[in-house]
Each structure stands twice: as C-alpha cells, then as structure tokens.
C-alpha cells in the first residue's frame, strides 16, 4: 500500500497527471455536489449556450444526495451514489474544464477516454459509508436548484475526504485491474 496523498481543490493538470489507480487520497477544499437531475439541468444550459450556475474549471463534482442535516450539523450522511447514471454528461463537463468526479461504480469508455483527453480523474468513495464520509464535510450550502431537494447543487467545504483513484489519465481502471488480480474464474 502506497502513501496517502493529500490534495487540495481546485485541481491543476499536474495534480491530476501524478495520480495513478489505487492511490489513496485525502481531498480538502471546495467540492460541488450534483447527481442525475442537476446534471440534466446543467446540460440543458450548455446546449442553450447559457452559463452554468457554478464555475466548473478545475473543480471536483461529488455524486451525492445527502440526507438532511440534523440541527447543528453542516450535512446529513453523505456517501457516493452510483456514477454510471452521470456517464452521458461527464465528457462534456470534462471538456469544459471539470477536473475530478467522486462516486462509486464503473464509468463508461467515453468517460474514461475523456479523462485521458482532458486530464481528469475519477475517485471512488466508499459506498454505504455515508455517516463516516459526512465527518469530512465542514460546510454545506445550496448554490443552485434548491427545488431538487437532495439533488440540489451544494458547495461543500471538505477536509481529508478519504478517496481512492479509480480511473487515471492513463486510461487505467482500478475495477478491472482489481478483479483481474483476485478472480478465480477463467478470464474471458
């Protein structure tokens, strides 16, 4: 197991280029939340040539629909949702300067190719560890699409959010490599 790397958002090209699959990362700084419905709305704006409600250049989007915050807390449980539902939108956002995505589950070939082309990274957070992950969230504020409730875009300030690099700028995929290593099935 390698060293745990501390990273600060916004991410620069050189930050992303240094990352390799399996690398553990503790991410700090601002990340934005968005899932299915928020992505759909952002895509509509892009298609209409209108500005997005957030500047995504160098930023990281966390696929999460948090539980409501208890009084005195910045956020409720906040683990990742399954990423493939955002696959159709991600290449366009990466083209526009998005640097990172946090979620769980496999990405499409189009997304993996876009990570290579535009220098981006896909991080995995542990699905189902929402109570644990929420401890890394210091602040949360709805910045767009409040009517979407848990699906609104939130600006989070995180400290040491525990992640692992799943797809890197070389086009590698931790899910595929991991399974190859531990599978006892004949490889197809």
């Amino acid at each position, binding site marked *: 197991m390698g060293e745990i790397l501390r990273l600060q958002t916004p991410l620069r090209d050189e930050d992303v280029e240094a990352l390799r699959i399996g690398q553990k990362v503790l991410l700090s700084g601002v990340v934005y939340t968005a899932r299915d419905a928020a992505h759909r709305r952002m895509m509509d704006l892009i298609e209409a040539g209108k500005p997005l409600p957030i500047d995504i250049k160098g930023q990281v989007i966390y696929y999460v629909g948090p539980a409501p915050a208890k009084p005195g807390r910045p956020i409720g449980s906040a683990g990742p949702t399954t990423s493939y539902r955002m696959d159709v939108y991600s290449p366009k956002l990466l083209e526009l300067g998005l640097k990172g995505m946090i979620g769980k589950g496999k990405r499409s070939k189009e997304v993996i190719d876009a990570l290579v082309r535009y220098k981006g990274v896909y991080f995995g957070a542990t699905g*189902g560890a929402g109570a644990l992950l929420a401890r890394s969230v210091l602040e949360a504020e709805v910045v767009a699409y409040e009517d979407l409730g848990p*699906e609104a875009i939130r600006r989070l300030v995180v400290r040491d959010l525990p992640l692992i690099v799943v797809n890197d700028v070389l086009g590698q995929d931790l899910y595929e490599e991991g399974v190859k290593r531990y599978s006892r099935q004949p490889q197809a």
Partner: protein
Amino acid sequence: MREIGFEKIVETVSRLFIEANTELGEDVLDAIRKAKDMEESPTGKEVLAELLENARIAKEEQVPMCQDTGLAVVFVEMGQDVHIVGGHLYEAIQEGVRRGYRDGYLRKSACHPFTRANTGDNTPAIIHMELVPGDRLKIIAMPKGGGSENMSAVAMLTPSVGKPGIMDYVVKRVKEAGSNPCPPVIVGVGIGGTLEKAAILAKRALLRRLGSSNSDPELDQMERELLERINDLGIGPQGYGGRITALGVFIEMMPCHIASLPVAVNIQCHAARHKEAVL
C-alpha cells in the same frame, strides 16, 4: 377480534424506519467482521473496516448509515383476528413512513417517474401484505436503497436450463452488477411462482439472518455453492478487487407453471436494513 389502534401502527412504523436506518443488525456486523479477517486484498480490508466504523458512527450519532435511506418497503403479516380501529391500515403505514423520514432526518427518495419531482415525504411505501392465522400484527420495515435495487432483475428462464441454468444466471447477474451495488452484497434469489411472485420471494429472502442455514437441504447446498462462485468472481469490497464480493446468498422457492422457470435476483448492499415489531 383483537383491536389495534391506528396511532400505534403509525408510531411503530416510524420508529422501525429510524432504527433500521441507524442501527445495522448484529448478524451483518458479524459477517463484515469475519469478511475482514478473510479478505486478502489490503484495500478490501480497509473498505470493510470503514463499513464497521461507519456503522459505529451511525449508531452513536443516530444518523443514517447511508444517505440513501431507501424507498420504504413494508412487509405486513396480519392475523385474521385483528381489527384496526381509527383508520385504514395502509394509511397508518404511510403516515408512519412520513413521520419517520421527517423526524429521523432520513432522505426522501421517492419521485415521479417522468418529471422526477420528489413526493416530499418518501411516500408511497411499498406494502406487501399477507393474511395469517392469529390475532397479532407483524410489521417489518425494510428501507431499500436504489443502487442495489437497480442491479436486480427477474428472468423468465427456459425450464430446460434447470438448476445449473438458474445458478449461472444468478452468478452472471452479480458479475454484471460489479462495483455498482456497493459490494459486499447479500443476494436474495426467488425461484418459481410467477413474474411478480419470484421478485417478492427474492426480496423476502433478504430478510433472513446472515449466517443462518436454509431449512431445505438442497437449497442450503445451492446457497453455499453460489456464495463460493460469487466470491470467486474477485469483485471484492467496493469492486476494488478481493475475496469477499457477497456476505450471503438466500434462496426462496415455490412451484411454478409447467411452461415457466421464473428467477429473480434481488441484490442488497451491506446496509441490509430491516427491523420488525409484533403488535
């Protein structure tokens, strides 16, 4: 006739959903601890340790273990000598869901299929009702997350494929689900009945205690074989590669049509949340 009041049911349903979402069952915790000992992948071990730590935090802080607090699935076994007073049973369940998801700071995840507009209170609950002998009312609350539900499926197999065909289908389904349903998973399998009955059997199978054996020796053997084959896939915790892809496989079976062989696979993530009460 034994009378049970409307409000009693509302309170019970509300409490069960909050408990289910904040307290992971001892059987699941035990299974994860054992899995952590058996897991060979260092990353896999770390993921399992995170899940145990997460369960501890959720219980201690009384917050949901996962932000996806599910659609509210409710199994009801109603004794035929029970009479509900003060309102309709289904309305009491819906009100209990409304209250539990509000008071427990649980996420409301129910929406309109087309517009995706949130219903705002996590209703309607999905209710599976059974009439049984006696004068008791058993309520099982099972919040079911979307990530693992999305990886579930029903197949109408050709009877000629037999038991080997059923087993291949279950393994294939888990393989295709891969990292998406947050492995380690629990696999509920429903065999027989009709299209909808197979799915309900698969869901009901998920209520079984991890570590328990199937009372049917043939199905018990099949569960063991399936678990081994699934763990040989190498998907591992969170899909990062490893020995432990599933914590358990549970099968329920019933007769089916001479022309049919329905098989349902209902995948459950580690947050196997279900709490019950008998009134």
